């Protein structure tokens, strides 16, 4: 099976090349047979990559340590579950997995468009096969072939056991977080393919955007959820209480998210007002490039090998070449089509939703630029001065916090401003109440003792935005109830279902507010560390004023003898009370895995509620050696106690964001109904207001 997989990867090379050439040729000559063959090559590519992936998985399950990839990311004792997910545990497999997912989306795209949008499909097939061709080339020729054998002095040999999977990756979140991100990265290729197809076939109206809106939203959703899952993994698994570090790998996934978010907003201007056509083309191109860049950054090993830069430059050159070519060709195409990409309209007034959207775009791109700059800075500085200077979280925070606050404010301002031209008087009227709520919230929090300026500003803005959005829901429901004569509950449901994009979008915005609320909570994190003997009790005070009493009950040690790759496990039990009232026990552990002489891993304990998380870290054992022999004198530990306000709202925000996006994505019954019974939707929309 594994050998067949390896051959399948080689067969995929000519197949993708074939599809690439025939797609463009078929589009150029308008020959349907060539196009059909190009589309079939997409299905074939998916089949071949599936066989190749199955080959890798078979190698993992069969403990075939003669393969370099398997021997480096698995061992005989690894749990079955992690052997199955081994396909995306490391660089080599995940590049194959990336290609497989892209081929999967390409198949969906080809299949759903087999009878429609035919004028786009030749080029869409061509573009998708170009990207797939590129990844197959990388897999085969950039020294990252997952089917490469282990060699010792040029002679093939089979290690007795693998080196095992990095314990930090042995986490539930880590098995679903990368695939989710990859789904986001790869699905963005489809809008990109349609954009290029539009540039090639000259249909430059909003059609390509309408066709790909769902793809863009889907891809954005996967990206968002993938990023938050990564935060969750970091929070639970890395064991120091943070969820975001501005680490290059995180930044890499944030970059396309920022530009995709900008794109989601700016396409509305093109759809509604026929403006920003060049801008949208550029954004989709940029986002696609950034998804490739993210893959490159996280999976080329470039950042990992910052210390040993020259380990594998082949893959870096291939990726840079590909990105350069994509950039050059797309720019040429846009320049070539420039006359047809002129705006149908102009912005009529600074006080309009269009300009709010534009401002939002500028902010998002500004954030993307700073993140990009900060991420690349070590490499740039090394190139220029020969010295690596890393840019830490302070840089990112200083630049991105103000941008984030402006964006948050815009989320509140946008809905209240009318398209085209807003009237100052109305703005004042509409803003009066939300601004009052904002100031009231700020004052209230001040009175309650909150003194951190940035957090106060953020929370007040959150209150402002929330008021605006809820007022929108209220007014919309009321207006609908009045026009249609419906009850309020029905009117509310119809309000959302009749314009899913708008109201789904608002729900996403509430999710964003929830995230901002949580991020600002970090200003009130507390962190204390105690050395405790069994039976000792400590007290920590929460920023809310209540206090926790924590009593260290004792240590229990188990020796794993290599089962599940565990050597030993030391579990500290802590009973927790809040203001004297018992809350039960929490356990935090140190684990030593068999792997590669790694440090013991920490498993943290988290007790979460809507207010705050109580986060316990078994920071150190007083004497590990003695503790493992159950020496009663060596039961002392260092316990780190963190209180992290509002963290749960990150996960709640992510759920809201998902819900809103799904509402916006849901197939539009509206449109069908409008076609079927014309009077139902159009007339009320056009009927004058009383």
């Amino acid at each position: 099976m594994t050998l067949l997989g390896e051959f399948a990867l080689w067969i995929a090379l000519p197949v993708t090349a074939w599809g690439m050439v025939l797609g463009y040729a078929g589009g150029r000559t308008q020959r349907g047979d060539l196009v059909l063959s190009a589309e079939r090559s997409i299905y074939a590519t998916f089949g071949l990559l599936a066989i190749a992936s199955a080959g890798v998985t078979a190698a993992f399950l069969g403990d075939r340590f003669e393969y370099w990839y398997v021997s480096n990311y698995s061992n005989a004792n690894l749990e079955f579950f992690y052997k199955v997910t081994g396909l995306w545990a490391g660089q080599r497999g995940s590049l194959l997995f990336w290609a497989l997912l892209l081929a999967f989306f390409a198949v969906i795209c080809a299949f759903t468009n087999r009878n429609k949008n035919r004028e786009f499909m030749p080029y869409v097939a061509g573009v998708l096969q170009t990207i797939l061709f590129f990844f197959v080339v990388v897999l085969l020729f950039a020294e990252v072939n997952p089917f490469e054998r282990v060699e010792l002095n040029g002679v093939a040999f089979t290690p007795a056991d693998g080196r095992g999977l990095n314990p930090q990756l042995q986490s539930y979140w880590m098995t679903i977080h990368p695939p989710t991100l990859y789904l986001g990265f790869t699905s963005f290729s489809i809008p990109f393919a349609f954009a290029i197809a539009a540039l090639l076939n000259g249909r430059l109206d909003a059609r390509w955007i309408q066709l790909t809106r769902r793809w863009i939203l889907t891809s954005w959703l996967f990206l968002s959820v993938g990023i938050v899952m990564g935060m969750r993994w970091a929070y639970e698994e890395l064991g120091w209480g943070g969820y975001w570090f501005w680490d290059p790998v995180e930044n890499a996934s944030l970059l396309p998210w920022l530009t995709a978010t900008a794109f989601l907003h700016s396409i509305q201007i093109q759809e509604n007002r026929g403006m920003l056509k060049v801008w949208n083309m550029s954004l989709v191109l940029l986002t696609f490039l950034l998804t490739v860049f993210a893959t490159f950054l996280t999976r080329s090993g470039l950042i990992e090998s910052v210390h040993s830069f020259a380990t594998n430059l082949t893959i870096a050159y291939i990726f840079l070449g590909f990105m350069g070519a994509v950039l050059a060709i797309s720019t040429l195409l846009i320049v070539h089509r420039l006359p047809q990409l002129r705006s149908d309209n102009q912005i009529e007034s600074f006080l309009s939703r269009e300009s709010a959207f534009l401002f939002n775009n500028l902010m998002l791109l500004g954030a993307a630029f700073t993140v990009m700059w900060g991420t690349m800075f070590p490499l740039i500085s090394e190139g220029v001065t020969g010295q690596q200077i890393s840019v830490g979280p302070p840089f990112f925070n200083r630049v991105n916090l103000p941008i984030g606050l402006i964006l948050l404010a815009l989320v509140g301002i946008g809905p209240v401003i009318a398209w085209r031209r807003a009237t100052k008087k109305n703005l004042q009227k509409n803003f009066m109440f939300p601004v009052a709520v904002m100031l009231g919230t700020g004052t209230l929090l001040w009175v309650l003792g909150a003194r951190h300026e940035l957090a106060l500003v953020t929370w007040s803005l959150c209150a402002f935005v929330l008021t605006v959005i809820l007022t929108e829901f209220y007014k919309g429901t009321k207006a609908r109830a009045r026009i249609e004569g419906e009850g309020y509950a029905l009117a509310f449901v119809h309000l959302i279902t009749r314009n899913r994009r708008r109201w789904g979008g608002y729900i996403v915005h509430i999710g964003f507010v929830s995230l901002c609320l949580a991020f600002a909570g970090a200003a009130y994190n507390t962190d204390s560390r105690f050395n405790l003997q069994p039976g000792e009790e400590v007290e920590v005070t929460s920023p809310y004023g209540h206090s926790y009493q924590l009593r260290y009950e004792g240590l229990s040690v188990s020796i794993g003898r290599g089962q599940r790759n565990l050597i030993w496990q030391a579990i500290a039990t802590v009973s927790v009370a809040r203001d004297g009232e018992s809350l039960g026990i929490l356990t935090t552990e140190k684990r030593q895995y068999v792997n590669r002489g790694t440090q013991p891993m920490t498993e943290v304990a988290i007790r979460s509620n809507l207010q705050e998380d109580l986060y316990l870290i078994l920071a150190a054992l007083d004497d590990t050696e003695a503790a493992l022999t159950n020496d009663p004198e060596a039961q002392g530990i260092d316990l780190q106690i963190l209180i992290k306000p509002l963290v749960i709202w990150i996960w709640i925000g992510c759920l809201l964001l998902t819900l809103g996006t799904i509402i916006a994505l849901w197939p539009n019954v509206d449109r069908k109904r409008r076609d079927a019974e014309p009077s139902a939707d159009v007339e009320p929309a056009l009927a004058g207001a009383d």
Partner: protein
Amino acid sequence: MTLYLGVALVTAAVVLFLIHPVIQGIHASLDREDDELTETEARKRVALLALRDVEYDFLAGKLDEDDYRTMKAKLTAEALAALAADEEAKETGAMGSAELEAEIAAIRRGLQGAVRCAACDFSNPAGSKFCSACGQPLLETVVS
């Protein structure tokens, strides 16, 4: 041996699958199909959506009455032009479906037929109480 057989089979299947359309001359359609929006239909849709936005913004209190009237008059004119252009395109090209014709007629009635201003003879959409052009109250009752 089994491996080579497998590889040969996969390769043969892929090659046949790919060259079959070219050899047999099976052509995929490359034409735009009928249910897609045409240029004029797209314009019509945008114009109608814009009208809906203005209505919504006015109802939600984001536009004051003066702006609402001027904008509505302008957009109504745009929408009517788009409808006319679309109808013209339909007549010269393929006939639209009966449903679509009915829809257009209904919208036309909604936009044109409803209330004619006694002072300036401007056609106001159904349900208007004031004339979009001159601002005079419209006295006629609207027949629904």
